[in-house]
C-alpha cells in the first residue's frame, strides 16, 4: 500500500483532532498498519484553523508531517481558504456543504458532503459531526475498515454517547460510500 497522507482542517470546537487520532489509532491498534498523527498547537490552534496530519502506511514512516496531502478535509471556510493550495494535484478534497462554499474548481476530486446537516437532522447533536466526517472519509478512500474505528470508539467514547457515535459513523459511511464527486478533475484514488 502506498502511504496515504491526510490533512484534517476545521475550527477548534469541531473535533477534527479527535477524529484524526481515532483514525490513526484504528490503523495502528486494530489493523496491521503503521500510522502517525500530529496537529497544530498554540494560540493559532485556539482561534483560526486547526489542522491535524495523518499518514497511514504499511511500512515505517520517517518524515512525520504531510506536505502535500492525498486527501484534504476542510470543515470551515477559513480552513478551506488556508489549506486548499496544499492538496496534491489530483487528490481528494472533502468539504462540508453547510460550512464551506468551494467557488472555483481545483485539480482534484471534490466532494461537498452535507455531513453537518445530515447529522443535525438524523441525530440533532453537533458533537458527533467529526465522527460522521470520519465515516465519510472511510467511505471514500481506502484507509481502515469501519470495524476498526468502531473498536476505537468502543473504549474512547463514554458508554451513553456510543450509540450516537456509531450512528454518526454510519451516516458518514453512507455519504462517503455512495457519492460521486461534485466534479472530478483529479485522478482516481481507490485502487
Amino acid at each position, binding site marked *: 500500500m502506498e502511504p496515504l497522507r491526510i490533512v484534517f482542517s476545521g475550527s477548534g470546537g469541531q473535533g477534527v483532532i479527535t477524529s484524526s*487520532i481515532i483514525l*490513526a*489509532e484504528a490503523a*495502528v*491498534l486494530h489493523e496491521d498498519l*503503521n*500510522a*502517525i*498523527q*500530529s*496537529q497544530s*498547537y*498554540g*494560540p493559532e*490552534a485556539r482561534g483560526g484553523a486547526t489542522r491535524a496530519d495523518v499518514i497511514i502506511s504499511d511500512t515505517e*514512516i*520517517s*518524515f*512525520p*508531517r504531510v*506536505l502535500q496531502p492525498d486527501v484534504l478535509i476542510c470543515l470551515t471556510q477559513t480552513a478551506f481558504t488556508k489549506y486548499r493550495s496544499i492538496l496534491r494535484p489530483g487528490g481528494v478534497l472533502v468539504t462540508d456543504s453547510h460550512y464551506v462554499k468551494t467557488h472555483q474548481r481545483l485539480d482534484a476530486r471534490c466532494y461537498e458532503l452535507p455531513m453537518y446537516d445530515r447529522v443535525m437532522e438524523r441525530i440533532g447533536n453537533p458533537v458527533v459531526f467529526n465522527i460522521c466526517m470520519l465515516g465519510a472519509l472511510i467511505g471514500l478512500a481506502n484507509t481502515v475498515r469501519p470495524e476498526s474505528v468502531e473498536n476505537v470508539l468502543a473504549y474512547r467514547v463514554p458508554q451513553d454517547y456510543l450509540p450516537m457515535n456509531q450512528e454518526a459513523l454510519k451516516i458518514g459511511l453512507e455519504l462517503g460510500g455512495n457519492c460521486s464527486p461534485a466534479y472530478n478533475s483529479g485522478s482516481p484514488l481507490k485502487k
Partner: protein
Amino acid sequence: MLEEKRFVQGNEACVEGALYAGLDFFAGYPITPSTEIAEHLSYRLPQRAGKFIQMEDEIASMSAIIGASLTGAKVMTATSGPGFSLMQEALGYAVMAEIPCVLVNVQRGGPSTGLPTHASQGDVMQARWGTHGDHSIIVLTASNVQDVFRVTVEAFNLSETYRTPVVLLFDEVVGHTRERLFLPKPGEIPLVERLKTNVPPDVNYHPYLPREDGRLPMSDFGGVHRYNVTGLYHDMWGFPSEDPQTVHDLLRHLVDKIEEYTDNICMYKEYYLDDAECVLISYGSPARSARYLVESRRLHGEALGLLELQTLWPFPAHVVREKCRNASYVIVVEMNMGQVLKSVKEAVDRPERVFLANRIDGVFITYKDIGNTLRVVQGKGV
C-alpha cells in the same frame, strides 16, 4: 493486544519508559510542550503507589526530586526552556551531591518565552553548561516514539550507574507526534538498580569515598547509615571542606566519572554510512527528515548517509570522527544556529568540510530544506 502495542505521543512514551525503568517519584510544574508528561504521570503513578506532586514552580520541582532520590526513589521531573533555566541551580546541586535523577526538557523556541508551541533544539549547549562552575553531565535525545521510550529507560540506568543527573533533551515534534509504541516485556530491557553499600550498620560508612571504578555505593535516608549531604565541597563524610586537595579530587572525580566512560554512555544510530560520500549528522526530530532524504536519494544512487546521535553529552567525538573520516562533506542537521555543529567541527579532521542545514523560525525542518542546503554545498546553488 493493547498490552504491548500503544498509539501514543512522544511525551507519553517518555512516561511509559520512566515507569518501565521503575520511576517512583515525579515532581513537576506544567509548561508547554512538556505538560503531557506531568499529566499522564499524575494518572499513572498513583496506580502503582508511586508519588506525583505538582510543585509551586520548577525550582521546587527539581528540589523535591533531589530530596526523594536520597530516600532511595527513582525520580524524574519534566519541563521546557524557561523552566529548565530555573532548574539550573538545583541541577548543579544534584551534580555536586551526586544525586541520581532524570530531567526531561522538551525543547521549545527560545530564548525567553520565545515560541512555546513550536519546534526548536536551542537548549543543547545550555544542557551542558547551564549551571555555574565546572562539571560534567549526561544528555540524551531521540527522534521517534519508540526511541523516546528506549532512551528514557537508559537515562535512568545511566543516572544510577554514574550517580548523576541525566537530561533528556526532546523537541516539540517528538513530544507531540503520535505513533506506534511496542512496550517491551518486563526484563526485556535490563534495568540498573541503585548500588547500595554493604557496610554493616555499626561500621563507618563513607558516603563520598569513590570506589576504584569511580562509583559510590549509596545508603538511603531513613536507613541505618546517617550522613551529611551538601552542595559545598565536601570530604568523604559529606562534611564541608575547603582543603585544596579535597576540592581538587572531588571536582576531578565529578568530571572523570563521566568523561572517562564516554564510550559506555555513547548511543547512536547509523544509516548507509559505509560508503557515504556525504554524511548527515542529526538528532531528534530533524533526524527523521534527514533519514527521509537519505533513503529517497539512495533510490537515485546518491551516496548519502546518516549518523543519528542519541547521546549529545558527553559528546561522542571519536564516533563522529570515525564516521566522517571518508566523507567529502558533512552536513549537520539541527533546529538551532549550529550548537552541535560546533562539537562536530571540533571532532572531525577537516572542519572546513562541515556544513549546517538548519531552521530557526519554529517550523519543523523538512527533507526539502536539507536538500536545498545540500544543493548549495554541492555548488549547485538553490
